[in-house]
């Protein structure tokens, strides 16, 4: 492994080249931003609204004051982890779109274990929370790990398999919540037994945002460090970028791929566990909220960078928060911010073609 780490250590390039590289990264993003603003403004104007007023409300609702920021960060919290659930398998070249299933099963496992340990063993909350998180991660990791295994050992397309597995997961989740794990008191909304109030994960200190945000950011930084700075991360990227070369130098490509899928699933499962411990206090159908699917867009927009997932999730959270304000102030339909997100992602992916074609570069 030591020899593999060598290419990562490189001599600092001259300043001019570094600036050009920075521009290379900035130009597609800026072009995408301008394109998104133009497209959405036209759409808003065509619908009979004043684009300036709409943009003003978007900025205010998402990022205008302390409340807007907390609103944004709260909405972003679960999306960081589900973004990672897609970004990590992507390091190994695998496109996983079924994080939703891993999330709900992770939440279910956490709720079941949480109930068992809090009601019967009276475990202290500080011990319970890490165990619930672990249960969620193991469950989610197992679920998407199966998808990776199917891909590597049975040549089943991982994208389709993960989506179908997600449907199975949700059916399984509903079945468990409505039968074996159902709290008999939950008459009209089948749920698992709720955690007692003292077992609910409190908000982050000084913020009205739950710990999903902190956990998400920490996991994103760790994931970034592992992928970019360690020999394991390099092996993973080689396996994803060129599996033949990877096999040629003796890397365990199959196990790296399955591991990356499992790591992604673990992130989704952790997101489910946090939702249960911090928001719902129980597992029920409210957990199936589409966070897993939003994670696909976030990971793609972040170009699968584990660190890039964080700002993109915050952006998406902000747009969701401002969509809430747009509905209330202007009576715009809920779909208007979906249109904005659609424009933004198409523009981001489209403008990627500008990369490396910058006009200031000769030849």
């Amino acid at each position, binding site marked *: 492994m030591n020899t593999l780490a060598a290419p990562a250590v490189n001599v600092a390039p001259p300043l001019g080249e570094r600036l050009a590289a920075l521009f290379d990264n900035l130009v597609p993003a800026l072009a995408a931003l301008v394109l998104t603003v133009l497209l959405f403004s036209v759409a808003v104007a065509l619908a009979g609204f004043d684009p300036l007023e709409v943009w003003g409300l978007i900025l205010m*609702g998402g990022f205008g004051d302390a*409340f807007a920021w*907390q*609103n944004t960060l*709260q*909405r972003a*919290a*679960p999306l960081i982890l589900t973004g990672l659930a897609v970004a990590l398998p992507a390091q190994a070249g695998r496109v996983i779109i079924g994080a939703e299933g891993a999330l709900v099963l992770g939440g279910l496992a956490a709720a079941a274990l949480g109930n068992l340990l809090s009601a019967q063993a009276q475990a202290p909350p500080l011990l319970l929370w890490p165990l619930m998180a672990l249960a969620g991660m193991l469950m989610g990791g197992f679920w998407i790990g199966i998808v990776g295994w199917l891909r590597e050992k049975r040549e089943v397309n991982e994208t389709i398999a993960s989506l179908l597995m997600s449907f199975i997961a949700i059916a399984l989740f*509903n*079945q468990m919540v*409505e*039968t074996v794990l159902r709290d008999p008191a939950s*008459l*009209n*909304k*089948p749920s698992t037994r*709720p955690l007692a109030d003292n077992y609910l994960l409190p908000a982050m200190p000084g913020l009205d945002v*739950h710990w999903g945000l902190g956990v998400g950011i920490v996991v994103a930084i760790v994931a970034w460090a592992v992928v970019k700075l360690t020999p394991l991360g390099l092996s993973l990227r080689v396996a994803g970028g060129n599996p033949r070369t990877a096999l040629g130098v003796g890397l365990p490509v199959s196990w790296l791929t399955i591991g990356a899928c499992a790591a992604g699933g673990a992130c989704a499962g952790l997101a489910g566990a946090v*939702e249960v411990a*911090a*928001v*719902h*206090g129980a597992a*029920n*159908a*409210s957990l199936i*909220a*589409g966070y897993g699917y939003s994670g696909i867009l976030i990971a793609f927009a972040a170009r699968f960078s584990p660190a890039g997932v964080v700002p993109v999730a915050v952006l998406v959270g902000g747009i*969701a*928060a401002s969509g*809430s*304000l747009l*509905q*209330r*102030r202007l*009576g715009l*339909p*809920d779909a208007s911010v979906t249109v904005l997100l659609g424009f933004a992602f198409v523009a981001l992916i489209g403008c990627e073609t500008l990369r490396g074609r910058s006009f200031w570069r000769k030849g």
Partner: protein
Amino acid sequence: MSQDRLTVPRRRLLAGSALASASLVLPGALRSALAQTPVTMGVIYVGPRSDFGYNQAQAQAAAAMKRLPGVKVIEEENVPETAAVQKTMEAMINQDKAGLIFATSFGYFDPHMLKMAEKYPKVRFAHCGGMWTEGKHPKNASSYFGYIDECQYLAGIVAGYTSKTKKLGFIAAKPIPQVLRNINAFTMGAKSVDPSITTRVIFTGEWSMPVKEAEAANSLIDQGVDVLTCHVDSPKVVVETAEKRGIYSSGYHASQAALAPKGYLTGAEWDWSTPYAAQIKALQGGAPQPNLLRGGLKEGYVKMSAYGPAVGDAAKKKADEVKAAMLKGGFVIFKGALKDNKGNVVIAAGTSLDQFNPELEKMNYLVEGVLGSIPG
């Protein structure tokens, strides 16, 4: 509790009055009295406002409130039952100064609305579903709900008269007490016309799953069912499928008459303008918040869709008779001896459970005449 409500005309059953709920008529004196205190009320929907179903019924009431003097209505649709709805409530309070919030989806109550009610004790919260309990939940939280099984019973009478095959179909989301109560009331209404009538029930497992609902509708029609009704969030697909296949349908939540001009018989609709107006009146008048608002036809919480062209005179006569008895009070749907569809006696002879009886909220059986079983 329900007498707290405004003098909203009790029955707005004018023919073709799909928009009737928007035309809330108030006496002039009351109007000016209400104009004193301006109120901003927020309404939160779990789905789209124009879903021809659950959310539309709430949105119609919100639209009616917009006509009240001094009332400003702000709305937000497609809000999931997650931390997002907590932030939406807070945003309505902080950004729009809302003093009254209607959280219309069942899953908004615990923990979301309860948490916000504790955090904002000066803001009043109202939840659709009937979960508020004295001593357990905050005083600035409340529940409103309606006994729509009365309307399902009447719809069952109309279906019973109309059906030629004597086979009715019911497409249901989840086997929870509220849904079972509707299936049972519909079936009992039909059986009051002809005891040989049966209702075939299919549970889709989800509140909104249009593909499964269409499959279930087609499957029931293939089995000879000629009147279809449902309890899902949006009856749109079920009613449209019935119309396309040339059979009759009975609506739910709001009126779907426009989707099935030929086969739409009648429907069980909510009239949420009654509890909405009661909450606004209490707030503007400085009265304590009514915590539990419930009622049926008599109290103006539910209403029937206008009869469609396919409904015969005998059906109308019988249904109107029973409705008059319900409006007078004293008509009991669930009374003994009542057997479930496995032959067990579920309500003993001589026992009669009126609408307010909490026993009915634990319903876990399908009555005799329902073909199908509770999954799980």
